């Protein structure tokens, strides 16, 4: 399972960077979305994938039996998803405002503040 995930994640990173290199700000934000999702999947995969073994401790014992899934990366991914959601919501509003004010969705037309 892990090699398949690795390939898929790699593909997502590549697609995200391709989109971010386009000139349209909408594609830029879609690229960012894809990039954060790829990173989340990477964390999820990096700790190893375990099927059907929730990290629950049976009653009357101090440690779970046998091999169980690592709960920490899942908690981490959950946090990262929430953060990415908030930030992307901001980014979507930002490009909308920017489009209204600059009247273009072309990054090449947003060079006034560059030096």
């Amino acid at each position, binding site marked *: 399972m892990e090699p398949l995930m690795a390939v898929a994640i790699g593909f997502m990173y590549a697609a995200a960077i391709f989109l971010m290199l386009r000139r349209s700000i909408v594609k830029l934000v879609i690229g960012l979305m894809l990039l954060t999702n790829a990173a989340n999947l990477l964390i999820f995969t990096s*700790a190893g994938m375990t099927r059907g073994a929730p990290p629950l401790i049976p009653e009357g014992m101090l440690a*779970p039996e046998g091999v169980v899934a690592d709960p920490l990366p899942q908690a981490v991914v959950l946090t990262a998803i929430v953060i990415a959601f908030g930030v992307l919501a901001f*980014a979507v509003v930002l490009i909308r*405002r*920017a489009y209204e004010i*600059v009247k273009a969705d072309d990054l090449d037309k947003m*060079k006034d503040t560059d030096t």
Partner: protein
Amino acid sequence: MRPEVALPVLLPLLSGAISLLFWRSRPMQRFTAVAGNLALMVVSLWLFTSVYQEGYVTIQMGGWEAPYGITLVADMLSAVMIVLTALIGLVIAVYSLASTGPDHEKFGYYPLMHLLLAGVSGAFLTGDIFNLYVWFEVMLVASFALLILGGEKAQMEGAIKYVTLNLLASVIFLTAIGLLYGMVGTLNMADIALRLHEAEHQGMVEVLAVMFMVAFGIKAAAFPLFFWLPASYHTPPVAVSALFAGLLTKVGVYSLFRVFTLMFDDTMDYTQDLLIWGATLTMVTGVLGAAAQYEFRRILSFHIVSQIGYMILGLALYTPLAIAGGVFAIMHNIVVKTNLFLISGITRRLQGTYQLKKMGGLYKERPWLAVAFFLSAFSLAGIPPLSGFFAKFVIVRAGIEAEAYVVTGIALAVGFMTLYSMVKIWNEVFWKSLPEDNLVPERETVVGDDGRMVKPNLWLMTLPVGVLAAMSLLIGVFAEPLMGLMNTIGEQLLNPQGYIEAVLGDNVDVIEALIETPASEEVSP
């Protein structure tokens, strides 16, 4: 329980919450801003005294022992950074009372400022790598919103670059955390430091080191990753610019100091050259970029980049003295750079523009402002006996001791180029007479509490400038005791054992035993 470690994070969050409760009441928000930051200052000094007496102070959040819970830990570097954060927070809060108009205050300027300070403090104190990411995001989201308050065209354009590149940095950071967790199975930085030495794939450790370097390099605005900074820092209201200039890039630099002394000290023979030449090119490109500019805040923005080079050079030389010099540079730069931005705000008030060509005659009109600018600008250029001189002196001396002559020579040359830009501002703004086409018409007025247009209190803007200029002078005068402090930091950073023991306590032995018998190491596959 050591509440002083958690309070610098909790207090700004609390002030932010109080500010939000009084969303409609401008006076209450302004009062909270000053009072909250005063309290933050008191708490940060408390933390500093504790750290000064004991070396390391930790608190395990929620009572979960490290490495399982999140540890907040303050060593000398964190404590100094927290004190500086509180100082800048307080100064900016007072300055904002006069400089930030109601059109910004109505849309949550003060709550965002508190949130930003909470993020910065959290990043300085956390001992957990994923928690560091979270604080970075807290800080970033607050800074995004502050950057676009006002919604002018330039702000939007600047914000798109700022947001994109900072998010990219965050994703690289997150990716590196994921891979790191896959290798060592822990997120606690002290625990990672112990396990990374014994990690199976040392090649992978170097890859991770470079990923962290790129992620923090973008946030610290190091060469060649700094382009977002001069494209955005001159666009928001001046108090926001000053706050960003003082604190945000320094969080990136602090993180570089932290991970490369604690976790990636083994990779230094590979990454040292990258860091040294990155730092050198940062200095040179920053200062050359500034030479071409004729807009007050753009010049200063490029100089932020240039000064970041000195700090990273201090880390890259990797001797106790060099690191002490690097931290001295951070301290000096936070004070001086913030002050220069604050001064640019006052001159803009007085003459209605940031364009140097259209300004002039301020030496005659406001001699004390000229003195404050003179102190800060020449301190930035490294003229003795001001604060910048000692930062540069220590780094140069460390460079010569490490026999890095070329780099040291470049660092000195960059000092002269800095002087060029500062003299340019001095000549244009203070020395030459006011050009005739500047009628100085629009002394900005703001809506007063009774609804009429009033002139803002200029003394509320000059007071912070005076305090920071005096600080810069005092850092120069008391360079000797401060240098003692910096040497402690250098020693602490290069001997991470103390940090690791402070965080993990008795668990160090347990973890070391586990590392030696890897069969029983992990429950997960």
